[in-house]
C-alpha cells in the first residue's frame, strides 16, 4: 500500500500541481497582508493621534460602568465580565487588539478562505486524480496489475489526504511567515472570545469563554482541514464518475460558488441547510457570526458535511470497483 501511495504522490508532484498551489498562496498572502495593513492604517487615522491604550482604557471604563448598572440581565453581565477581563489582559500585557500580529492575520486569512479559496485549491489537486487516468488511457495499465481495484483507489484517496494536509499546512506556514514581516510574529497568547451560539436573532453569550489565540487558531485549522477533506472527497467522487477533468472542475466550481451565493439568500428556505455548500463556513461558529439559516450549529454543519462526505466516498469506491473500462 505504501508503494501505491508513493506512486500517486510521485505522479502528483510530477504534474506540478502542488507547486502551482504554493505559488498561488505565496502570491495571495502578501496581497492580503497589504490590504490588512492599509485597513489598520486607515483605522488609526480615524482615531487621530490618540494612543490605543487610552482608547482601550475608555472602553474598559465604559464596560465597568455598564456592569455596575443594576438593571442588566445575569447572562449579559457574565458576558460583559468576560469582555472586561479580555480588555484588561490586552492593557496589562501591552497588546494592541487592533494591530494584529502574524497569528491574527493567519486567523483572519483562514476564516475568509474556508468557504471558497481553500476548497478551490483542493479542487485543483483532486479534480484530475482519477479522471486524468481515464482520459489519458493509463487506467488500463493501472487496473491490469495484480492489485485489487479498491486498493488502487484507496492509494489515490490517501494521496489526496496527504496533499490536502500539505495545502492546509502550507497556508498556515506561508500566511504566518509572510505576514509576520509586516505585523511581527508575536500574539500567540492573545485572549479571544469563543463559544457564541445563535438562536433566532439573538446572540447567546452564556457559553462564551476566553481561549488563547494559539488554541483558537488550532481549532480553526482543524475545521478548515475537515472542510477541505469533505470538498476533496466530493471532488474525488466526481473525478471517479466523470472522465473529463473540466466537467469535474465545472460542477465543483458551480456548487461552491452557488454555496457562497445561497448563504446570503436562503434565510427563509430552511431545507437548503442540508446542502453541503451552505455548511462550509465552519469557522463562523467559532467566532460567533450569524448563520445563514436558523437552526444551524457547528454540530449540525459538521454532521451534514460528514453525511455528504461518507456518501461520496461510498459512491466513488463502489462505482470504481464495478465499472467496465472501455
Amino acid at each position, binding site marked *: 500500500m505504501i*508503494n*501505491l501511495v*508513493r*506512486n500517486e504522490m*510521485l*505522479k502528483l508532484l*510530477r*504534474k506540478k500541481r502542488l507547486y502551482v498551489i504554493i505559488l498561488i498562496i505565496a502570491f495571495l498572502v502578501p496581497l492580503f497582508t497589504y490590504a490588512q495593513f492599509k485597513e489598520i492604517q486607515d483605522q488609526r487615522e480615524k482615531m487621530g493621534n490618540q494612543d490605543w491604550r487610552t482608547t482601550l482604557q475608555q472602553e474598559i471604563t465604559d464596560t465597568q460602568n455598564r456592569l455596575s448598572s443594576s438593571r442588566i440581565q445575569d447572562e449579559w453581565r457574565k458576558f460583559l465580565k468576560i469582555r472586561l477581563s479580555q480588555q484588561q489582559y490586552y492593557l496589562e500585557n501591552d497588546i494592541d487588539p487592533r494591530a494584529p500580529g502574524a497569528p491574527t492575520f493567519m486567523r483572519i486569512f483562514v476564516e475568509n478562505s474556508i468557504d471558497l479559496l481553500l476548497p478551490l485549491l483542493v479542487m485543483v489537486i483532486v479534480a484530475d486524480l482519477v479522471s486524468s487516468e481515464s482520459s*489519458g*488511457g*493509463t487506467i*488500463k*495499465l*493501472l*487496473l*491490469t*496489475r*495484480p*492489485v*485489487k481495484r479498491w486498493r488502487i483507489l484507496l492509494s489515490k484517496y490517501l494521496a489526496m489526504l496527504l496533499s490536502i494536509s500539505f495545502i492546509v499546512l502550507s497556508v498556515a506556514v506561508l500566511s504566518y511567515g509572510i505576514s509576520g514581516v509586516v505585523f511581527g510574529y508575536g500574539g500567540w497568547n492573545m485572549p479571544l472570545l469563543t463559544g457564541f451560539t445563535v438562536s433566532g436573532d439573538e446572540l447567546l453569550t452564556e457559553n462564551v469563554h476566553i481561549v488563547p489565540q494559539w488554541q483558537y487558531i488550532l481549532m480553526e485549522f482543524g475545521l478548515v482541514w475537515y472542510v477541505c477533506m469533505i470538498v476533496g472527497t466530493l471532488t474525488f467522487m466526481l473525478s471517479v464518475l466523470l472522465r473529463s477533468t473540466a466537467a469535474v472542475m465545472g460542477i465543483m466550481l458551480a456548487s461552491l460558488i452557488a454555496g457562497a451565493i445561497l448563504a446570503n439568500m436562503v434565510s427563509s428556505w430552511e431545507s437548503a441547510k442540508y446542502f453541503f455548500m451552505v455548511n462550509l463556513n465552519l469557522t463562523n461558529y467559532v467566532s460567533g457570526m450569524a448563520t445563514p439559516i436558523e437552526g444551524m450549529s457547528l454540530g449540525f454543519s459538521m454532521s451534514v458535511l460528514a453525511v455528504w462526505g461518507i456518501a461520496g466516498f461510498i459512491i466513488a469506491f463502489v462505482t470504481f470497483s*464495478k465499472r*467496465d*473500462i*472501455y
Partner: protein
Amino acid sequence: MSQIPALEVENLTKKIKGKQIIKGVSFTLVPGEVFGFLGPNGAGKTTTIRMIVGLISPTSGTIKIGGKNVRTEFTEAMRHLGCIVENPELYPYLTGWENLVHFQKMDSSIPKTRLNEVIELVGLQNRIHDRVSTYSLGMRQRLGIAQALLGKPKVLILDEPTNGLDPAGIREMREFIRQLAREENLSVLVSSHLLSEIQLMCDRVAIISKGAVLRTDSVDNLLAEQERVIWRAEPLSLAKEILSLETEVTEGPDDTLITLYNEPLLPDWNEKLVNAGVKVKEMRTQLPSLEDLFLEVTGGESID
C-alpha cells in the same frame, strides 16, 4: 496436451444494454504459441480482450490465465498477464524509467533488477531517462511492451500491436513477438484487422465476426484447405469444358483457370486434357491469402 493452457477462454458472453455484443467466444492458448485474433473493426476483438484483462466484467463465461480464474482469483491471474490494450498509453509527464518503476512497485514479486532486463530486451537503454512525452510512437510501443513484460508473464496480450507503426517498425515488432514466443516460451495473443500481419506472425488464428468466433485453426491448415491450382492451357475454352466435368472451375486473370487442389486427382485431370488435345503450358499450386479465406468464412463481410 498435458500442460496447463496459458489462457483459456470459455463461452464468454457480454451483454450491453440488452444487446448481445459477444456471443459465446471460446479458445485456448498453449504455452509458446502466437495466437491471432482476426476480425473487422467492431467485431468484438477489443471487448473480448478487455474482458480477458479484467477491465470489463463478462456477462457469463470463464477466463483462466495460467489456470487462475480472472474473476475469482484476480490478483493471481493478473500476475501471469502482461498486456497493451489499444495504444500504449503511459504517463507522458514521467520518464520511461519512472513509468517502469511505477508499475514495478505495483507488484511486490518483481525485483528491481528486472527493470534493466526488460529495458535491454526492448532496446530502450539510451532514452529511458527521457520523458515519455518526447518519445516517438515506436518507442512508446516498445516501452509499452517493456511494461507488459515486467512481471515475467505467461501470457502477453497485444491489441493491434502494429497500429501506427511504419513498415520497418512493423517488421521489427513481428520478429520481436516471434522471438519472445520462441525463447521465453511466452504465449502471445495478437489482435489485428490486418490479415497479412496475422499470416506472418501467428501459429493459429481465430476468425471473429459480429461477436462470435467463426473458425479456429492453424494458419497452415486454414490456408491448405483453400489451396488452388492455376492452369495455363490452350485452347482455354476447351480446357475449361473438360475440367468443368471434373471439378469447379473459375477463370483467373491472364487467361488462366483456377480449380481446387486435389492431389490424387490432378494427374487424371491433366491426362484428360492432354488426351483431348489441349496443350497444358503450366500447372501450379497457389496458397490463397488470408484475405480470400476471410471473405469466404465470413460470407463476404468487408474487412477494411
